[in-house]
């Protein structure tokens, strides 16, 4: 178990980490997401003992990792893969063998392990190739193998696929999952690829302003963002501000630009709140045939259609209220959806997530 306690880090008077606390369980994949420049890399470097925190401490299985007597022991229990693939000016074989040589393994053991790792990463036969001549994806596989061959308990990955093509990304993700499942390696990765966070992680933390402002299961974080800022970062398309008009049947009715929106929960009448509605939670109907049990039904007109691959985002306006709806490319063709077409939107009350302006400190 890794316990991060109030880690702070200053660089030349600027506080990059403002107090990070979290507990990461053994064997889990923990993803740190957040915009660039929020301190994700700095935290990972502190975890890997490459940086010293200004204050706070990190405990692994109850022991402080920075204690002079055991820091080298902890460093050898961890491995880090960086954003840029690292290739030493040497053969692929020697690149992968490096950590084993540091640990004094015999030539025969090194040969056996390197051969096995090359097979795992799909680079058998590349032993004698100069590592610097490999492609970015191949180099990153070598970087991962170089770390995993040493058998670390904790694998730290700093945006490991940020510079890679989709195929190489998939290979790296498969390897990460393989090592996590097969070897029980605890994985801590940072990424700004939200989909990657959702694909790989069992738990996610959102880092903003140098601290974790929300952490929890992938489902919790991506469906119940703790603030409008988090909602915006994780890609919730509809973030609106409104005031509570009344409470009825255990539901708050929030008036947004003159439209009443029902949400689960009771709130003080008159209070101003932020609400988030994911575009994929909203149903779009054309014509009079409206068959839905949804609490929220809004009539409007299509303002624009923005294609995103096979999915398109349709912007619907109703008075001053604007909502984005996700529709497949096929539906757009079949229903002839285009600017100016009148439509009806429906969504259920649980799809409306109420958030404060700032995340409450309980989330930290």
């Amino acid at each position, binding site marked *: 178990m890794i316990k991060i306690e109030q880690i702070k880090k200053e660089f030349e008077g600027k506080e990059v980490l403002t107090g990070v606390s979290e507990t990461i369980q053994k064997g889990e994949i923990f993803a740190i997401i957040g915009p660039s420049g929020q301190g994700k890399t700095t935290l990972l470097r502190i975890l890997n003992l490459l940086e010293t925190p200004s204050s706070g401490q990190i405990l692994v299985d109850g022991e402080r990792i920075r204690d002079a007597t055991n820091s*080298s022991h902890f*460093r050898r229990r961890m*491995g880090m893969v960086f954003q840029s693939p*690292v290739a*030493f*000016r040497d053969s692929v074989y020697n690149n992968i063998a490096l950590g084993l040589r*540091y640990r004094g393994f015999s030539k025969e053991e090194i040969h056996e392990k390197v051969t096995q790792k090359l097979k795992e990463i799909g680079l058998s036969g590349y032993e004698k190739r100069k590592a610097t001549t490999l492609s970015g994806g191949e180099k990153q596989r070598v970087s991962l193998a*170089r*770390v995993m061959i040493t058998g670390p308990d904790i694998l730290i990955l700093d945006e490991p696929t940020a510079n890679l093509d989709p195929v190489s990304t998939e290979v790296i993700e498969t390897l990460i999952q393989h090592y996590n499942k097969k070897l029980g390696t605890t994985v801590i990765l940072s990424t700004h690829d939200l989909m990657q966070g959702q694909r790989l992680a069992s738990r996610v933390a959102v880092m903003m302003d140098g601290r974790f402002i929300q952490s929890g299961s992938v489902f919790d974080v991506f469906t119940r963002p703790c603030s409008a800022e988090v909602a915006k970062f994780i890609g919730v398309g509809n973030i609106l501000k409104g005031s509570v008009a009344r409470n009825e049947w255990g539901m708050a009715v929030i008036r947004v630009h003159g439209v009443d929106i029902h949400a689960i929960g009771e709130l003080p009448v008159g209070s101003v709140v932020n609400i988030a509605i994911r575009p994929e939670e909203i149903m779009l109907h054309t014509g009079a045939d409206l068959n839905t049990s949804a609490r929220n039904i809004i009539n409007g007109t299509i303002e624009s259609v923005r294609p995103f691959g096979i999915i398109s985002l349709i912007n619907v306006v109703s008075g001053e209220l604007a909502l984005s709806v996700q529709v497949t490319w096929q539906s757009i063709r079949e229903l002839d959806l285009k600017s100016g077409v009148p439509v009806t939107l429906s969504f259920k009350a649980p799809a409306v997530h109420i958030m404060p302006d700032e995340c409450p400190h309980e989330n930290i």
Partner: protein
Amino acid sequence: MNDLLTGIETAFHLILAVDPQVFDIAIRTLQITFSSVLISTIIAIPLGSAITFREFPGKKTLISLIQTLYALPTVIVGLLCYMLLSRSGPLGDLKWLFTPNGMIFGQTILIIPIMAGLTIAALQAIDPIITDTIKSLGATRLQFLKSHLKEARFAIMAAIIVGFSRAISEVGTAIMIGGNIKGHTRVLTTAISLQTSMGNFNLSLALGIILLAIALIINLGMGFVQNR
């Protein structure tokens, strides 16, 4: 033009005939140069590494000073070494003045700044992510240093080549410390200097060509090792 052609002809004649005097001078030149390069390598590479990887006050100033010493005039080194090695100097007891050992001492002082400075430049040019990876893999201090030197091996080899070139071609220190004593401290550069002053331009030119040929062969050899 005629002198030049005659000089080249004389050079080939001396080389092909294996002139014992020229052979003796060439061998001594190589012995002294290789010795000074070897000693400088042993001192300059660890020194450059220590300066690169240790943080201390005045580090930048020290690096600037080392870089300034690249242009150290050989006669200044000769004068300094003369004062150190002369009978009344602090190292007078070594009795190295006008000996090959004294010449090695002088050349070593001359090329240490060059080799140390270029070692620092070579190590500083390594991508910081390589350093992070080495640390992250759990290298000990010695493994850390070895991995960095291996990564910078081509640039460090270049530093040794530059040191060798500077040592084999310098004349100021060799003449002041060695004294150009025939059969004892005479090397190719001092012999060229002497023959030129005596008006034996052909022989000077021939010795110059031999010097260049030796430097070329050594550089090609080191280049071959580098490219392997």
